[in-house]
């Protein structure tokens, strides 16, 4: 298991992602995520001198579209999919600590 990833790390990330994990979940994910990081470590062991950092696997840059309106979706259809609607807006739970 990688020494860099602790159970507390996983608990913190789960908290940020609003995931409620059991103790067993935390143990299992710590192990699995560590394995993923260990695999990434394997790459670092290679001699990568002269290889530029890669942000994307595709040999593409500047994929652009013209600034032209494309019809979106009908409001009634969109709102009909929402769990709760009021005043033609999505109704969502208030977030704790929200600004007044």
């Amino acid at each position, binding site marked *: 298991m990688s020494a860099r990833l602790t159970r507390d790390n996983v608990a913190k990330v789960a908290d940020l992602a609003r995931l409620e994990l059991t103790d067993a979940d935390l143990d299992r994910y710590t192990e699995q995520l560590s394995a993923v990081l260990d695999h990434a470590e394997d790459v670092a062991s290679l001699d990568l001198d002269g290889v530029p950092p890669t*942000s994307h696997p595709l040999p593409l840059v*500047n994929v652009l579209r013209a600034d032209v309106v494309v019809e979106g979706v009908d409001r009634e259809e969109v709102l009909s999919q929402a769990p709760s609607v009021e005043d033609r807006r*999505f109704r969502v739970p208030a977030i704790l600590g929200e600004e007044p």
Partner: protein
Amino acid sequence: MTLTHEPIEGEHFIVVSETTGNEWEIVVGLEVHCELATVTKLFCGCPNMFGDEPNTNVCPVCLGLPGSLPVLNENVVELAMRLGRALQCSVEPSVFARKNYFYPDMPKDYQVTQFDRPINADGWLDLPDGTRVGIERAHIEEDTGKNSHAGGSGRIHGADYSLVDYNRAGVPLVEIVGRPHIRHPEQAKTYIDELRAILLTTGASDAKMEEGSLRVDANVSVRRVGDSELGTRCEVKNLNSLRSLGRAIEYEARRQVDLLETGERIKQETRHWDEGAGRTRAGRSKEEAEDYRYFQEPDLVPLVPSAEWIAAIDAAMPPLPAARRDALALASGLGVTESSVVIAVQRDLDQLALAAIAAGGDGKRVLTHVEHNLSGEGSAELGPDAFAQLVGLELGGQLTATQAKTVLAEMVVSGRAPDVIAAELGFEAMDSSELEGIVDGLIAESPEEWSDFCTGDDKKRAKLQGFFTGKIMKATKGQADGKAVAALLESRRAESL
């Protein structure tokens, strides 16, 4: 603790503690979000439109529906680069990142922004007072939807839910991160004025603070005068006007000095300006940068504008406010920081002023009229030759300053020549013996007031000067020159003593 504030004009704003006598300096860095003036959103073809019916400008991309993919708007790149180059930034190869957070204003639960590789880096903005404010970066990101706690009938007290309109979600923004080079609340306001002028000149944004297309956050800290280390800063939000910006910086600096002078520490946090109460309040505790868990947006490829594209933007760059002020200062003989020079450029009247000066108009008089008697919108009918002619009549003594103002107001409406308008209004130079006759007659009509004018104290004399000037102006139908009247009254007073 009572504190006094001694603004040093055009320079640093110093807070002096009355209890210790310590002098504290304000340090401000501004972060400005501006909405780009595109037709459509950043990553989808929904209209970028303020004030539409809620949730009418939405599609699977900006609603974050599964399977949708973003495609970058070419015009966003164009406008962002125009702005960046106007701010003297270098355009760099850039990538997009996801900023992860849970808040219902973004349906995806992340905001697409640029993090470690912004499109524009390392520029500056020169203020009219000569200060150069560094620009750390100006990067592209998407705006969020609009949360409200109020229903159609008004604010809901104690509501346990929010209502969200996603029309604004995905609208393109550029965030301009300024370096902490601002030292005065007024300078912060000037910076925003100057930035707004650049946004308008480049066509990047309509920059309306009241509609939220230009939003300002202020990072404020204080330090002892002479210190070079920066103090702990607080980020002040909810600044909806320039007035709020100035007041909030001053309040926040005073609050921090109060804390530091009583031995407390400043906690780095986000604070909200309350315009009604005139104070800042602690808001959400500022999350650590890594809490946003930025990572590269896998759905978007890198943005690498070609050298040709950047060169084309540079070639098409319109004259920027600083260069326009320089040109006007040179032509008029006034200083580049003169208010009339600054205002002429702000009102977009510098071309008119330059042409009027080129047509022979006196630079100082031309700019005085621009500053006091002309508006940016209402001066389309005014030609430079006629403007120069008016100034000539005024300097030649054929029109008084008041008459020139009246004639100018008519020229702006009708576009007619100043001499024609002056003749119609009966504005002719009044010869001095005629004026003397009128003044002497009025003095004879009001012997008591005249006696008080001659012998009264300063206050009384000022009041009676107004009394006589008013009567003279009425008798001459405003044709008398105010300066000549004042001089005549004074010489008559001296004679009678």
